[in-house]
């Protein structure tokens, strides 16, 4: 009945976080066009669910919806063989030295490639922490995981990112295969 009023509130509270939503979708889907469609879908879902939103962290609320919409989309739109579930027992091994890393990481393209080569759960947590500046509490809320595991998941994600950066060639080969 008061849809116009809802819209004004939604625009004031949720839409300021549209960039955050798009950025997360762009990294999860690795494609700007898909990210645009899925973010739009997620925002409309958020609007329909806005009645259930009470005061609180609107950014985390929107990001959680964007993330869930992305994962649903990914499940529907790619072959099962590509699907890489995050394995809590995965522990990447230390490799590479800081010198090669410094050279490699100065390259935006190389960083993009390295980030995109990570499993989704690693990519997601790095994007939320390093690009979005989310706290552990917010990351826990967005990804629906206990706050205690956020720190160890970040440790693993960063280690794997360092490994991909110091081995750009082998990663390339692995992706091409």
């Amino acid at each position: 009945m008061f849809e116009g009023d809802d819209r004004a509130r939604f625009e004031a509270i949720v839409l300021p976080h549209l960039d955050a939503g798009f950025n997360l979708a762009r990294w999860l889907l690795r494609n700007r066009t898909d990210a645009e469609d899925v973010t739009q879908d997620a925002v409309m879902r958020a609007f329909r669910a806005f009645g259930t939103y009470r005061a609180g962290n609107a950014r985390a609320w929107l990001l959680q919806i964007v993330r869930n919409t992305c994962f649903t989309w990914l499940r529907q739109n790619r072959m099962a063989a590509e699907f890489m579930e995050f394995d809590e027992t995965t522990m990447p091994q230390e490799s590479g030295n800081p010198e090669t890393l410094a050279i490699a990481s100065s390259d935006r393209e190389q960083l993009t490639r390295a980030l995109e080569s990570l499993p989704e759960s690693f990519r997601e947590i790095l994007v939320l922490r390093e690009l979005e500046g989310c706290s552990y509490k917010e990351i826990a809320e967005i990804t629906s995981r206990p706050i205690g595991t956020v720190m160890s998941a970040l440790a693993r994600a960063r280690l794997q990112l360092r490994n991909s950066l110091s081995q750009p060639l082998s990663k390339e080969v692995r992706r091409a295969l």
Partner: protein
Amino acid sequence: MPCNQTQNQLHGYLDGELDALGAANFEKHLEACPDCQKVLETEESLRRSLQQASLYGRAPRSLQNKIAEMLPAPRPASVPFFGPWHWFALAATALLAVLFTWQFLPPGNSSRRQPTLAAAVVDAHLRSLQPGHLEDVQSTDQHTVKPWFDGRLDFAPPVRDFANDGFPLLGGRLDVINGQSVAALVYGRRKHIVNVLVWKTSALPGNPGNGELQGYHWVSWKMGDLTMYAVSDVASGDLVQLRDLFAKN
């Protein structure tokens, strides 16, 4: 090889998420452990690379437009092939709807509660993000921004550039919080904007603290006879870092 016990703590330390005791314990370990020092250094340089590589993808204009189109319109949109009578009927309906809403909307929905200081600060931050509202004086030079405030306020805000610490000064503006003129210093943090609002404590008392409203964090502190509020959508750890930079310099 890095020590296994401290591997996770190292990341909590890097992210400013350890409590005071945990951070002190880790620092003690760090002093004695060259491996962890090296890992921490590498992680810090990797973080700088990630944040400086323009990896953040902002929502394109086309997406903003599509969303604006899909949300229910606040007013009836234009309809093609309408004769003058239709227009009149439409206008009358709209007028009735407005009167109806005005009459029957519960007061809690339409009239806003008196905002708290933190809410007023977050509002000021949101206003500043509207196009053209961020800065009155746009400069990364503190020696340009600082004199700009002279004569506009009855106090001198502490204008500092923290570009080397990841908080480049972008400019300043005048703002109004609960009827008081305040100085707003604008900083960048990665792709985000941080507003630091400054006023005389005697004019508008505020308590040191921190909190979160609608997804925005704020941290407040006192500096001499000034009260300062940092507000942004970055993590509160970042705002605490900015507060400490002001305290140190």
